């Protein structure tokens, strides 16, 4: 479903700020894989998702989605295949537009946008039903500006937008990190429900090691721009946080450092 082959990316080459963020990144996902991604600060997790999404072009390597080489495809064209939720709740929605307008924009991902109505009344009914599933009371506020919503509500809405039109791959970049624990749990629950319902192929970065173990069928650990540990199935399920920390020290020769990571068991 997704394949990254020897992907490399260096930011600001030839300057004092030169930073190799992806250094021989290889990854292959089967359809229906739900992969959690962990790693220290600056390991290249977000950069990996950005490379897949086409935020910029990679220096070397190829990216294939569903058999199609997208390495040279601009971001807006790749959007056809991808649903994305970002860490910052501000990033995924247009604050000055209504809830229903945001959803209508997402419903047209990958379609030609012409002079037809930007939203139809049939769509409104559909959105109302889908918002009910989130259980945040948004179904009664279709015409409210998104800027009025809380961070959790915005993330849940972004999640719905990302999956409204079934993506080939769902990319989640610490999408609950900015939320309070209770809201984070709720959004994560909704995430799992949606992923399971449509059996979506998913990459989910998380700073919560426990979540990384509990969710999905596969876990990868990144360090210095590539994968240093890849585990799946029963072996993954039986992991503990201390196992992960140990694996990290073995593979990297250093201590796990991430200021946001939660080590609580």
């Amino acid at each position: 479903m997704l394949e990254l082959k020897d992907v490399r990316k260096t930011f600001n080459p030839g300057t004092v700020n030169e930073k190799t963020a992806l250094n021989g990144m290889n990854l292959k996902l089967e359809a229906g894989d739900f992969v959690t991604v962990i790693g220290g600060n600056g390991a290249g997790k977000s950069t990996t998702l950005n490379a897949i999404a086409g935020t910029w072009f990679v220096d070397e390597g190829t990216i294939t989605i569903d058999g199609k080489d997208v390495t040279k495809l601009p971001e807006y064209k790749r959007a056809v295949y991808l649903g994305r939720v970002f860490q910052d709740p501000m990033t995924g929605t247009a604050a000055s537009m209504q809830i229903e307008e945001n959803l209508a924009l997402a419903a047209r991902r990958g379609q030609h946008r012409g002079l037809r109505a930007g939203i139809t009344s049939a769509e409104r009914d559909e959105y109302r039903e889908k918002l009910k599933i989130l259980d945040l009371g948004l179904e009664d506020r279709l015409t409210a500006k998104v800027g009025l919503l809380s961070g959790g509500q915005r993330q849940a809405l972004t999640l719905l937008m990302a999956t409204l039109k079934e993506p080939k791959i769902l990319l989640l970049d610490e999408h609950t990190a900015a939320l309070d624990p209770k809201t984070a749990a709720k959004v994560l629950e909704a995430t799992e429900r949606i992923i399971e319902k449509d059996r979506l192929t998913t990459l989910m970065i998380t700073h919560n090691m426990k979540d990384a173990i509990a969710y999905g069928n596969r876990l990868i650990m990144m360090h210095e721009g590539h994968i240093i540990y890849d585990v799946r199935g029963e072996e993954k399920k039986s992991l503990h946080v201390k196992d992960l920390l140990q694996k990290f020290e073995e593979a990297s020769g250093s201590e796990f450092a991430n200021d946001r990571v939660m080590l609580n068991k």
Partner: protein
Amino acid sequence: MNIMNLISALPGAAAQGLIWGIMAIGVYITFKLLDLADLTVDGTMCTGGAVCIMLMLNGWSAGPALLVAFAAGLLAGLVTGVLHTTFGIPAILAGILTQLGLYSINLRIMDNKANQAINVDKYDLLISLRYIKNVPVYKNTILIVAVILLILIALLYWFFGTEIGAAIRATGANLHMSRAQGINTDVTKILGLMLSNGIVAFASGLYAQYQGFADINAGRGAIVIGLAAVIIAEVLFGKLGKNFALKLGFVALGGVVYYLVLQLVLWLGLNANDLKLVSATIVAFFLALPRIKDRKKGVADNA
């Protein structure tokens, strides 16, 4: 300072204000919807009039001439849009470059004359400063401009509700999200800049007819007048409604208020040239307002 002088000047001020209100709606599209400051309009506010007057002097009637003026504006916006998106030139600079280039083009259009007059008695002008008083209602310039304004607002209301219109608004609201939703934001920015400059050039064509001449300096400082109207609309009428059509109407009214204030200032004895300083100061003040408010809040928070 005869009050009657002021009162008799008001209808003309209202007509000019409405025409500049149309121009301000063009500015609103880039400045508010797309979140771009586009200085091309200082050029297109001359181009539209030049095109319109020259065509009419060559026997065209007002309607088609205005449409060609609109098209010329679209082209100018296209140039700025391509400079900005395809070639990555910052929007302000791209606008300045197009504006500068337009100066030469505008002169060419006007047969290398700085001014081209059109005689209201010989040509069938759609509007004119002579059609303000003592004309049949259907020929009244204020009425005609008001009707054009309403049609324009209705069209824009429809357009920004379509898929592509919504995509343009999304681009201004959140570029990142727009791309993630598959919107080609280069195209939407170009379309927005084209539409904006088309409307400005159309207003320019109206203004040239109103004054009875096209002038190479017609667009000087136009962006500031447009911004002033947008800002006046926000400050005076912002609380009266959130509906998009209403907002566009308020922007046009902002233009009227601007021209009424201008009349007042002239009547008080300042001359028209002093007004540029007054408008620049007012616009600078209102653009700075959010920051000034933040500072005050900061002081209050620290206390």
